[in-house]
C-alpha cells in the first residue's frame, strides 16, 4: 500500500484549504499522540472508577469520589482536544491545571492521610501506579496547548 503514503500529502492540502479554526492544530502533529494518550486515560480511568464505585465505594469514599472526578476531567480534556476551537482550548488548559493540582494534592494526601487513600486511585502516590504518567501528562498537555496558542497569536 504505497498509496496511503501518497494520499497523505494530498489530504493535508485539502485539510489546509478548508476553513477550520486555527485551534484545530491542538490535535495535529504531536497533539495526535497527546489526544490518544488522553483518550486511553479517559477510558481506563472511567472503567476503574466505575468498578470502584459499583463494587467497593464504602471502603474509601473520598478516594473513589476523586477517581470519578479524575475520570470526568480526562474525558473533558480528550473531548476538548478533539473539538479544537478557541473555547475548547481554554477548557483544555483549565482541565490540565485541575489535573495537575489534583495529582499533587491527592499525591500529598495519600502520604499524609493513608487511611483515606488506602486503595489506589489514578492520582494517589503521584500516579505511581500508572508509571507517573498522570503527573507528567498535564505538564505535557499545558506545554503543548501553550505552544499552539503562541503559534496562533504569532500568525
Amino acid at each position, binding site marked *: 500500500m504505497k498509496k496511503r503514503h501518497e494520499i*497523505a500529502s494530498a489530504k*493535508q492540502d485539502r485539510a489546509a484549504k478548508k476553513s477550520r479554526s486555527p485551534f484545530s492544530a491542538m490535535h495535529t502533529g504531536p497533539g*495526535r*499522540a497527546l489526544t490518544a494518550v488522553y*483518550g486511553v486515560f479517559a477510558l*481506563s480511568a472511567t472503567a476503574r472508577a466505575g468498578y470502584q464505585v459499583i463494587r467497593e465505594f464504602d471502603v474509601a469514599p473520598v478516594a473513589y469520589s476523586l477517581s470519578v472526578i479524575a475520570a470526568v476531567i480526562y474525558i473533558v480534556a480528550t473531548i476538548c482536544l478533539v473539538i479544537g476551537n478557541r473555547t475548547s482550548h481554554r477548557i483544555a488548559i483549565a482541565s490540565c491545571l485541575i489535573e495537575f493540582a489534583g495529582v499533587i494534592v491527592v499525591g500529598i494526601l495519600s502520604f499524609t492521610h493513608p487511611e483515606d487513600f488506602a486503595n489506589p486511585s489514578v492520582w494517589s502516590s503521584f500516579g505511581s501506579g500508572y508509571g507517573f504518567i498522570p503527573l507528567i501528562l498535564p505538564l505535557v498537555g499545558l506545554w503543548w496547548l501553550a505552544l499552539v496558542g503562541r503559534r496562533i497569536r504569532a500568525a
Partner: protein
Amino acid sequence: MFTVFTIVLYAVSAVLVIWSIVEAIRNRPANTMLLGATALLLLLLIVQLVLSIATFGSTDGIDPLLYFGYVITAILVIGLAGFWAFAELSRWGPGVLAAAGLTVIVMIERLDQIWQ
C-alpha cells in the same frame, strides 16, 4: 491465565509496539501490514474474552466485573487505536498504535494477576 496464550499475547503486543515506534520514527503512516498486526492483536484479545467466558466457571474468587472490565477495555483501546491509525495518514498513526500497545501490555499483566 492460559500460560501459552498469555505469552502469545505479550509477544504480539510487544512486536506491535516496537514496529509502531520504528514506523513513527521513519515518519511513515501505518501500512497495511501494521494494521494487520493490530487486527491480529484485536482478534487474539477477543479469543481471550471467549476463552475466559468459557472457563470462568472453573475459577473462584475472581470478580467478573473487574476481569471482564479489563478485557473489554483492552479490546476497546486496540479497536479504537486501530481505527485511528487507519484514518490517520501521518507518523502519528503508528504513534497512537504504540501508545495503545503499551497500555494493552500493562492490561494483560493485570489480567494475569487477577486470574491467579
